[in-house]
């Protein structure tokens, strides 16, 4: 009994491979279409996006610089760390971003600007990183700096302390962050292969023609007494 099972399984695996082989052209076409679509999107349609960032440190109130006798206490440090997440939200707040829009005369909305701004809290530090993306690298840096400036002002207004310091000003970075050709193309390759194989089996399941002597035995219960090979007209085999 076991022997039969092994045999049948071997057949079905062989069948799968033969289906894939037979529909190879279909699979190739689907893969090619997917890759072409992804390439078109990546290289022609999608505008390049650049990202620029500025880092800001929370803490170290300015007064202390003048009065350097008192050291920073652990208590203060902890407080600042807790404050960081609050500050992160302030950086993304509407009043901050609307001030940026006003100052830079940007022709966009607050929501759109917000979607282009990422505020990262660097873990276990008092540092906030503000990343801004734009189609123009210089503009990205300008906006990032404007955000950090109005953020400082907002902190003063809200918290009544001036304890925000810019570590790194944003500078234009001419490295595209989007589109990502390698990622897009490899994703499209995988997607195309999956779709191609799916279509191949779909087509195979819709093809109810008799394809082998086994089919004749299975559906007709008749013996095959001859197999005449297919010869193209004029071809001599």
């Amino acid at each position: 009994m076991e022997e039969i099972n092994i045999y049948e399984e071997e057949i079905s695996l062989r069948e799968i491979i033969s289906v894939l082989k037979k529909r190879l052209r279909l699979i190739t076409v689907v893969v090619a279409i997917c890759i072409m679509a992804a390439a078109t999107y990546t290289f022609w349609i999608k505008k390049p996006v650049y990202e620029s960032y500025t880092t800001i440190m929370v803490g170290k109130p300015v007064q202390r610089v003048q009065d350097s006798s008192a050291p920073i206490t652990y208590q203060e440090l902890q407080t600042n760390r807790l404050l960081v997440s609050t500050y992160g939200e302030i950086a993304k707040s509407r009043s901050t971003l609307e001030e940026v829009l006003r100052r830079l005369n940007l022709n966009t909305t607050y929501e759109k600007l917000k979607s282009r701004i990422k505020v990262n809290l660097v873990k276990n530090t008092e540092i906030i990183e503000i990343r801004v993306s734009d189609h123009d690298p210089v503009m990205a840096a300008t906006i990032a700096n404007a955000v950090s400036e109005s953020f400082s002002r907002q902190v003063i207004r809200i918290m009544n302390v001036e304890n925000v310091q810019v570590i790194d000003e944003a500078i234009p970075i001419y490295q595209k962050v989007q589109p990502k050709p390698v990622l897009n193309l490899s994703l499209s390759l995988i997607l195309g292969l999956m779709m191609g194989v799916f279509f191949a089996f779909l087509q195979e399941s819709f093809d109810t023609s008799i394809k082998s002597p086994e089919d004749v035995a299975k559906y007709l219960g008749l013996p095959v007494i001859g197999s005449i090979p297919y010869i193209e007209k004029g071809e001599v085999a």
Partner: protein
Amino acid sequence: MEEMDAQLFVMDDPKSVVSEAFRVLRTNLQFSSIDRPLKKVVVTSSIPQEGKSTVIANLAVSIASAGSRVLLVDADLRRPKLYKLFLLENYKGLSNLLAEDLPLDTVVNTTKVENLHVITSGPVPPNPAEVLGSAKMKNFLDEVASLYDMVLIDAPPVNSVADAAILSTLVDGVILVVEEGSTEREAAVAAKQQLDKVNARILGVVLNKVKQQKGGGYYYYYYYYGEGDHKRKKKKIT
């Protein structure tokens, strides 16, 4: 254009893979009737364009070249094809023979192949099914069966008209042509049921237009027959 697809491989190129396949068919046919004499055989298919005429013509050539006297009758009175294949005129044929009581030798055509004679369909009658089902047709078949070693009859498709089913009751066996990768299962099953209904003796199926696997055409078929045996044996044992 479709009519020109048919070819006489066996006559034109006896050493080809196709000719070899027809020789295998010829042998299988011989062995499929050891006890019952097999003289009159109808070749049909479920639907048109599956290659009936090509199969029957090449089979006829193949049997004739083995030394048997073969008569090939085109009983597809509606869409005759054999006369084109053998480059014959079709002014006079089976329909005249049955309708006008002509003597046999006035409609029998000789061919380039020794031992192979062909009767073309003749003009299309208004009532092909009746003509084929007539007592005259039966008498005609009995007569030619005594004159030839093998009478092969090309019939219209089973699923389209009743002709093939009618013919199959007058003969010793029926061969069903199935085009690989094209004939639908349902069509083939319907054809078989149709033939079973009239108690036809179906000798077997000829798979036509079998796609060859690259690099192993000739070998593949022989390997297949071997493999088939192997499989059956295996199932019996376990």
